[in-house]
């Protein structure tokens, strides 16, 4: 069975709203498409896809597989895996990319075992080996202590999940066009074994770490919940958001919505300022891909300095307020 020369991006949506990671995957997918000569496509299962098409084209999809069914309004693993797998069986794409979201991390492994496909989780780098015609999927393992490049030589499709904020999103233009392929998939035979009875969004407009250009994060070195004001002060001056290490979240100094790292959020701001954070591998896993990292720590041997572009050795309680003061002076 020869695979169709297509790269698919799973266009994750709920209630007609596409997830941000979809645009990041399309942006990265364009590079893979350019290198491989494959066609970049979006797979859009939803209750009504039309309003989402333009955005998908704008980010580089040349073709959209549009699957509509009222049962696809919100995510349900049995329905979505049936849809995506049926499509894969029919069209044989070479590569399928998913966001490593709650949804992607249920869907992708299910689809992988429905067929006999390779799946690599949480890739931080994707590349195409033109000689062997395979996808090179690089990811951290052992909590980030090592990196591994995974390949899938003999099975198709080659599938990866990627966390949000690992790749940058870049629109091609405001008015791209492409092909829409309408696909009907019969879901009537899928037994409803699970039903969502409630869905709660907790993080309305608390901390938008994912969208922030500047993030100032505090660690155990901040010393107390009150002292987080110092961190907030700098974040405010920079017009950014407040992040935190797990040590401070566990101590109850700040809510877990602020936590950055392996078990918190992955962020990719322009500038990340780590204050009183030692730089444990689990913390680094969430912020290492920031464009520029500034570390403020009194211990010159703290591992955070290994990943920093700028390191300031000293007491954060003196340095951070000074930083805030000088920024404010600059701005006024």
């Amino acid at each position: 069975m020869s695979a169709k020369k297509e790269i698919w991006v799973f266009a994750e949506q709920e209630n007609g709203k596409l997830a941000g990671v979809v645009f990041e995957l399309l942006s990265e997918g364009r590079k893979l498409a350019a290198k491989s000569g494959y066609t970049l496509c979006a797979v859009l299962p939803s209750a009504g896809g039309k309003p989402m098409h333009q955005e998908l084209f704008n980010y580089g999809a040349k073709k959209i597989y549009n699957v509509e069914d009222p049962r696809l309004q919100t995510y349900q693993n049995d329905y979505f895996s049936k849809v995506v797998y049926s499509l894969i069986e029919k069209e044989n794409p070479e590569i399928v990319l998913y966001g490593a979201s709650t949804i992607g991390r249920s869907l992708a492994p299910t689809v992988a075992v429905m067929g006999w496909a390779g799946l690599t989780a949480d890739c931080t780098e994707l590349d195409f080996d033109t000689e062997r015609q395979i996808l090179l999927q690089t990811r951290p393992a052992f909590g980030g202590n090592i990196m591994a490049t995974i390949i899938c030589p003999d099975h198709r499709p080659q599938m990866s999940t990627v966390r949000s904020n690992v790749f940058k999103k870049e629109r091609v233009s405001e008015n791209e066009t492409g092909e829409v392929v309408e696909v009907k998939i019969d879901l009537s035979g899928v037994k409803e074994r699970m039903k969502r009875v409630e869905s709660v969004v907790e993080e309305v407009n608390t901390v938008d770490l994912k969208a922030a250009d500047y993030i100032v994060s505090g660690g155990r070195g901040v010393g107390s919940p009150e002292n987080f004001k110092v961190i907030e002060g700098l974040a405010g001056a920079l017009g950014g958001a407040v992040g935190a290490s797990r040590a401070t979240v566990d101590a109850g100094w700040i809510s877990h919505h602020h936590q950055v790292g392996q078990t918190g959020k992955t962020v990719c701001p322009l500038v990340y300022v780590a204050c009183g954070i030692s730089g444990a591998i689990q913390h680094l896993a969430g912020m290492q891909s920031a464009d520029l990292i500034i570390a403020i720590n009194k211990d010159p041997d703290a591992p955070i300095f290994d990943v920093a572009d700028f390191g300031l050795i000293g007491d954060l309680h003196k340095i951070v307020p000074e930083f805030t003061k000088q920024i404010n002076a600059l701005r006024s």
Partner: protein
Amino acid sequence: MNIVVCIKQVPDSDKVTIDRETNRLNRAGVPSIINPFDENALEMALQLKDKHGGKITVISMGPPQAEEALRTALSHGADEAILISDRKFGGADTWATSYTITLALKKLADPVDLILFGKQAIDGDTAQVGPGVAHFFGVPMITYAKSCEVTENGFRVQQVTDHGYNVWDVEKPAALTVVKEANQLRMPSLKKKMAAKKAEIPVWGAEQLQPDETKIGLSGSPTKVNKVFAPPVKLNKEILSGEPADMVKELIYKLREKKVL
């Protein structure tokens, strides 16, 4: 109620490093532990059993020494343990692992009501085996479960999402992956510890499980490791020290030079 908890023995990943010259893992002397998230799955099972009675079977696939992890699970209160181990299973990726574990589930004498996994393993961090087994075994799957209550026909499960949570009603048998926030594993009791030492732990290999040999181990695995390497380190870093006001002044100057301020 029959609950199966799938656990993995992992190296304490904080302590695994890579030799920057040879690109080999330094695993010598690194202690093995039960994957921390699997402890939450085990505790969820124990709490359900406290309330509703039943039996907890722990299953682990791995080398012979993974038996140790199973004994630990017994000391915390699991009733029975099974080790899936065979040289033929070695080198399995998540696909082949899911396939192999499913064969063991199918071989269990009593019908299973609930299969629990940790949300992911800290060595590979893939979070793929739970959903894989659920599909092969033919049961519905809810990932990232924070709580689970028994209902008339199955379970009511709270699932942690990227922005909040969902509540699901799922029929039984079902499979869940469990998050850290769910609970904390209770201490082992002395009595159970003693019993765990002596417990008989059957080992199921290819002979017992009768797999399709093309679907196990390295050859059954669609993904292969192409190479491993040390994460890159930053080379052009600047370390400043001295008076806060001077350091910050220099920093701001440099940031403006780089046009990020």
